[in-house]
């Protein structure tokens, strides 16, 4: 105490006091800052949370800083929409190394996926999670959507959206029971082998038409009876050979049997 008191007239004391005063004022202002500043803080919090989650769950393959490794591609510029699609459909984190990540039960809730999306989006801008106005397919024209689907999508996904094989073990997945939002995001971001159909290629309205077409196809069902997976001649031929020929063989046996 005495040491402090004896130096209270020291030339440096004024400067020190001034510094202390400024520090306290600044600190108090920061603590009592008005609302907008708080909101900005929360967003950067989300990015921070996303970064933490990324480092824990994704960085093994995609690398620290998401620039990619031999195991996984760089995520710079893929955008929050790609994250939402890959994690929302359970494709990422990948259960094990393989030629293609299959659809799975999502391992993260929407909030965490949004946080990781915000982090990836903060690295380099990419397509954001689209507006719900287009992703529901509401008001889309199923007829026009069918034309667009048959030109752009059906060669891989099959005209009924049942999916199909690609080269060397890869495949185009079935589009049945896929949330419309994820169909939209897949077109927007081009996950895995799928090419990108950006908004200049297929406008948001055109994408809504495609979703409306798939919805209508699904709701219409199969008035002709069993669809057999909508796979065409392979499954139909299999049923015809096994059951059709089986019945014919049975009938021939019955006809040839002696006695009544």
């Amino acid at each position, binding site marked *: 105490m005495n040491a402090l008191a004896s130096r209270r007239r020291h030339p440096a004391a004024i400067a020190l006091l001034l510094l202390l005063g400024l520090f306290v004022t600044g600190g108090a202002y920061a603590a009592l800052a008005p609302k907008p500043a708080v909101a900005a803080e929360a967003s950067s919090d989300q990015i921070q949370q996303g970064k933490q989650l990324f480092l824990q769950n994704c960085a093994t393959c995609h690398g620290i800083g998401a620039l990619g490794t031999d195991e996984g591609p760089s995520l710079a510029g893929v955008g929050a929409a790609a994250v939402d699609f890959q994690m929302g459909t359970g494709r990422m984190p990948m259960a094990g190394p393989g030629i293609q990540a299959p659809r799975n039960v999502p391992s993260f809730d929407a909030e965490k996926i949004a946080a990781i999306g915000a982090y990836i989006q903060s690295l380099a801008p990419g397509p954001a999670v689209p507006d719900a106005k287009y992703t529901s397919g509401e008001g889309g024209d199923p007829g026009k959507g069918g034309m667009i689907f048959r*030109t752009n999508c059906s060669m891989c996904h099959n005209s009924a959206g049942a999916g199909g094989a690609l*080269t060397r073990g890869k495949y185009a997945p079935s589009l049945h029971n896929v949330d419309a939002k994820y169909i939209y995001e897949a077109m927007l971001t*081009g996950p895995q082998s799928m090419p990108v159909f950006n908004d200049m*290629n297929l406008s948001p309205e055109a994408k809504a038409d495609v979703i409306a077409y798939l919805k209508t196809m699904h709701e219409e069902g199969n*008035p002709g009876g*069993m669809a057999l997976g909508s796979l065409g001649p392979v499954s139909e031929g299999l049923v015809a050979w096994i059951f059709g020929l089986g019945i014919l063989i049975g009938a021939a046996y019955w006809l040839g049997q002696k006695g009544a």
Partner: protein
Amino acid sequence: MTTHEFPDADSAGVVRLDEGHHPGDGKMPAEFENPGLPPHVHRMADHDEAGAKRAERQVAGLFGLSMLGTIVAMVGYFAFSTEHRSWVPGLGHVSTTNLLLGIGIGLGLLGIGLGAVHWAKTLMPDEEVVEMRHPMRSSDEARAGFAEVMRDGGEKSQLFRRPLLKLSLGGAMGLFSLPLLVQLLGSLGPLPRNNLDVTFWDGHPHEGEDGKQHRTFEHPRLVTDPEGIPIKAADVTIGSVYHVLPAGLLPNADGEGGLEHGQLEEKAKAAVLLMRLDPTEFQDTPGGKKAKEWGHDGIVAYSKICTHVGCPVGLYERTTHHLLCPCHQSTFDVTDDCKVIFGPAKRPLPQLKITVDDEGYLIAAQPFQEAVGPSFWERG
């Protein structure tokens, strides 16, 4: 050995057929006897009138089932609209009319068939009857008689004496076959001319003064299929795929224009797939260099018509840059000028050389330099 257990066989040196298999002395019998037909077993309906009556009712029941089925089919056709759906376990919601028509007509035919077979098996005679085969050849007299009649007819009609009759009749009948042949050949349509070598990228087809079809190349813009929107080079991001047609073939985005006649034929030849790759991904081969040069900043355009049998090659994997044909799995490598790397196709897909116009839209720099689609005889 055990032969002494079968005294008959042992004494005759013959294995008796009704004794089944047993070790013999290895000799064959001198002659097998014809065992004949097994004794006939009569059916229940043959000796029991009640059984016959039951079989009769069963057959009539099956025919009745057929009638019921036919009526169900007709009711299904008239009573329900094609929009009506009903839920069936295992099938889901299916068209009621289709369902009843299928079941009804199926039962209608099946009932007749089952009834007829059941009738034949229970009530029609089932005694085996042996009928010996007779020679088919006619007797020598009959054959000589036939030849005589034919010769006599020829003489009496003076066919041999007056060759003019023979020749003119033959000529008339031969000529009569020509109208049939001419119609057959004529209805094959006009000659193909150079239709397989040119596409809509060469320009609009129009009649020239010489009466032949001409096309003038006018650097058509690349537009999206089916919407007809022109494509800016800047809008084609890496990894994108555009399904492309030449401008003017389909109506544009406002629904105007478009080719009036032969639109589908032109579309079938002009379909193009547009992709953008990172320019560093093209291979360092003559093909890869040419592909990059004919493209624009990594954007390349290839004919979508498979060189095998002409299916649309649309399955583009943007990670491997493989283009796969869904019909026979021909695989083309986009980084190496669409060289065939798998499957039955023999030639790479033809590339369309593209560039940009003043407004930044993609245009064709030149038409296809080779015929698109599968090989044909005159292609060379």
